[in-house]
């Protein structure tokens, strides 16, 4: 699947796997792929958020969820305990997003799969998807983002 991915996109996926490991998660989800894509400063500028903001927002969502079930852990930073490198499978949502990435590239008759194609697929995700929740919490207008990404020709 990754043969047609441009180097920058393969990096984004690899960064996504790293983010999953950093957070102590067992599978690579759409939220991790989003974090992976945001590691590139240019792509982050397109979305209007930094990778740091996104990581902090993910931590904040975790904290809020715990408070909602009555657990207050104070300064909760899951990224403080990285797992050792594991063979991390993708969640079904992440696999879907990667397939959509290919579909977008094909529709564009483009030969290279760029991080923008991946970002577009992630911006299409809907609740309760993790990337959708993260983008919503960061107040990103995904409809506007999708328009911008679709109208952008290399």
């Amino acid at each position, binding site marked *: 699947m990754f043969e047609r991915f441009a180097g920058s996109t393969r990096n984004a996926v690899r960064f996504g796997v790293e983010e999953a490991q950093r*957070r*102590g*998660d*067992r599978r690579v989800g759409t939220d991790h792929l989003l974090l992976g894509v945001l590691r590139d400063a240019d792509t982050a500028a397109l979305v209007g958020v930094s990778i740091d903001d996104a990581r902090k927002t993910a931590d904040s*969502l*975790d*904290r*809020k*969820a*715990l408070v*909602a*079930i*009555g*657990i207050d*852990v104070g300064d*909760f*930073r*899951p990224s*403080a*305990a*990285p*797992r*050792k490198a594991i063979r991390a499978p993708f969640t079904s949502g992440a696999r879907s997003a990667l397939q959509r990435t290919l579909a977008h590239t094909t529709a564009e008759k483009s030969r290279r799969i760029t991080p923008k194609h991946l970002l577009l697929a992630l911006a299409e995700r809907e*609740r*309760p998807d993790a990337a959708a*929740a993260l983008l919503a919490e960061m107040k990103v207008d995904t409809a506007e983002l999708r328009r911008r990404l679709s109208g952008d020709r290399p």
Partner: protein
Amino acid sequence: MTDDMLAHIRSTDPATGLRAVGALHRLAEQVEAMHVALARQEGWSWEQIGDALGVSRQSVHAKYGK
């Protein structure tokens, strides 16, 4: 589990509740990593650490060993 906590859990929507489960797993990973390291510093064997966690020596070693 207290009645308070039960009420809390029941009043949460599943998106939040399931997110909390994920967060608990991450928290458990964090606490485990920290205390496995501390245990090793204090001279615990992988077997003793495995017993404390309720897993095999091999799996702890595979996860944290060099």
